[in-house]
């Protein structure tokens, strides 16, 4: 991934910044220029708090180029407390203990050991909630 692209996505990768529609209140992640619910064009940045639950998951044994060194690894769809869903690598978890419905929280990790241009990319991954109620 190009440097410019990674830089452009930094607020999403590091802070889970989405958008909230000023007209209907719907929250989106990733950010959108138009509200998919009411087509309003007035949306404001809206950081998400990074907690959610697992909707589905898979453990990959064959990886796309750039991820071969990490197999086997888990990727899941997480539904955040505010509503939006995202795809993330799952970390700090026993691959046999993954369960749909489990509570997860965001953490920042290295996404790829080596990008196309040699830059190490960081971004969100999700792990089981460590301290309930914290």
């Amino acid at each position, binding site marked *: 991934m190009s440097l410019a692209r990674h830089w452009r996505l930094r607020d999403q990768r590091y802070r889970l910044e989405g958008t909230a529609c000023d007209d209907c209140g719907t929250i989106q992640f990733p950010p959108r220029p138009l509200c998919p619910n009411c087509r309003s064009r007035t949306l404001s940045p809206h950081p998400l708090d990074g907690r959610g639950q697992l909707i589905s998951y898979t453990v990959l044994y064959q*990886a796309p180029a750039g991820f071969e060194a990490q197999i086997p690894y888990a990727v899941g769809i997480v539904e955040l407390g505010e509503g939006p869903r995202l795809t993330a690598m799952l970390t700090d978890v026993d691959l046999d203990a993954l369960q749909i419905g489990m509570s997860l929280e965001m953490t920042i990790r290295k996404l790829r050991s080596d990008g196309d241009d040699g830059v190490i990319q960081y971004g969100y991954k999700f792990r089981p909630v460590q301290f309930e109620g914290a």
Partner: protein
Amino acid sequence: MKELAIIGIGQTPVGEHWAVGLRDLATEAIWAALDDAGLDGADALFVGNMLSGEMAQQAHLGALIADHAALAGIEAVKVEAACGAAAAALRQAVLAVGSGAAEVAVAVGVEKLTEQPPADTTAALAMAADGDYELPMGLSFVGVGALLMQRYLYEHRVPKEAFARFPIQAHDNAQHNPHAMFRSPITAQQYADAKMIASPINLLDSSPIADGAAAVVVTTAERARRLSDRAVRLLACEVGTDTVALHDRADLLWLKGVERSTKKALARAGKRHEEIDLFELHDAFSVIAALSLESAGFAERGCGLCHAQRGDFGRGGRLPIATMGGLKARGHPVGATGLYQVVEATLQLRGEAPEPLQIPDARVAMAQNIGGSGATVVTTILERMEG
């Protein structure tokens, strides 16, 4: 829109074609279709393809293939919609002839996937998903299908072994299809023992990557009646879309693109579900076969597998699917697949399917080509032409 027909079909065997390049593969299918139609040219060429840029460092396929096929000078463009590219190219041919802009249009799908290192091919195929928000998280295209299957097992509480029915049936059909990639049957035990690729999807849940090209010739029904006694009517070819990223769908187990495309196609064709005699569906993964049947309205939600177990979708069932082996066993040369489906449906309606695959008295056929995990869906309905 004018009434349309398919008057010629062509296909190359699906498999590893290391000795042949993209342009030769496409040319072979184009001329097989034109020869079949008894024509010596066309007004327009629409080339379905997904990955020529990544796999062969080749863009600009429209003009390149038109020239190589000795059709230089005609209108020719590439159409891309991930694994739905070929039927999307057919849609362009339908619009071109249906509008009167062209008298004869050829749609060809062509793909070569077998000559790059597997990790590079895996990364390229993953481009069907969201490049900003799915791929950087290490997701592969099989991984996308696996997220659907895991959710299916959880929500519908079915045993994973129940999915074996789809690949077993596909292989059983493909053994009789001379163009198929896998021509040997598989057993439930082989399915149970198959290597995991992205859990819960194993090697036998997944269609194989392949090389191949398939083409059809489209013209008006009026002209087809004069030119050929083997033409089939092209009643509908309709596109529906959904979000590219799986996580943007509130309900993972309902393919809205499939529902939209199917409804549009049935309405355009003036047909009801009960009138469809066979369904060439997009079984890229066994779970996609189940979800397609449900979202298209051929089985209730969560019941695609129960109907399959009863034999509803086998050769003698109420709606035979993947009659020549489907993506699973005929093979899945992604940007060509949608036209293999249409070629196979046409063979069925002409009564030219290899025995014992011929569906007796097949009159109306549906083919459905899916891009990504359901983001682009093209549904084509064909009907046997009477007298």
